């Protein structure tokens, strides 16, 4: 059953037309002990029918430990946004944007925003912020706690 209304599907279809490169939603899941993995997958499955630039790739957290470790994922459900590098069709780039938990409710809007950003939309940050970020020379991990409502 579709989670999005036909009107929402149509407006997302229009907004996704600005995607200039392929966005890969790496979906880390496990079959046992993950109550919201099915819900998360259902939400993600709403997106590829709306744009041929969006693909979902499932990664089994238990069976594909190496891949999970490469992206620093140790829980499910988790989503890593990656994209195809224009220089080489095979190279998949990590956007360093992740979602832990099902992207339901308010978080769905964040996911759409992130897809557009990774898909080629210009940064929404001001010049001053971008200048400061360019000077960051050590690893920073930002965890943003949210709820669906």
């Amino acid at each position, binding site marked *: 059953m579709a989670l999005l209304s036909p009107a929402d599907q149509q407006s997302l279809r229009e907004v996704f037309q600005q995607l200039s490169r392929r966005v890969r939603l790496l979906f880390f899941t496990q079959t046992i002990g993950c*109550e*919201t993995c099915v819900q998360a997958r259902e939400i993600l499955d709403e997106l590829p029918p709306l744009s041929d630039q969006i693909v979902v790739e499932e990664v089994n957290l238990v069976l594909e430990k190496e891949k999970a470790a490469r992206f*620093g994922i140790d*829980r499910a459900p988790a989503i890593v946004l990656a994209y195809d590098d224009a220089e080489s069709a095979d190279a998949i780039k990590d*956007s*360093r*944007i*992740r*979602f*832990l*938990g*099902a*992207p*339901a409710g308010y*978080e769905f809007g*964040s996911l759409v*925003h*992130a897809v557009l*950003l*990774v898909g080629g939309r210009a*940064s*929404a*940050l*001001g010049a*001053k*912020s*971008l200048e*400061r*970020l*360019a000077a*960051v*020379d*050590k*690893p*920073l*991990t*930002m*965890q*943003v*706690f*949210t*709820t*669906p409502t």
Partner: protein
Amino acid sequence: MSLAHEMAFASPNITSVAVEATEFPDLARKYHVSGVPKTVVNDEVEILGALPEDAFVDQALSGS
């Protein structure tokens, strides 16, 4: 939320993780999350609530 994602995409040294607090109560407990949004940077800096861009970037980079 989107600000942290924007920052991660703009800097190769930054990773941002949106954590659904009710699905991961152990993480919410570990970081003493009593309201959202709450942002934790490198387990050191805490940002409570949603802030304007300049203030958010300021606080997020304050530990580095």
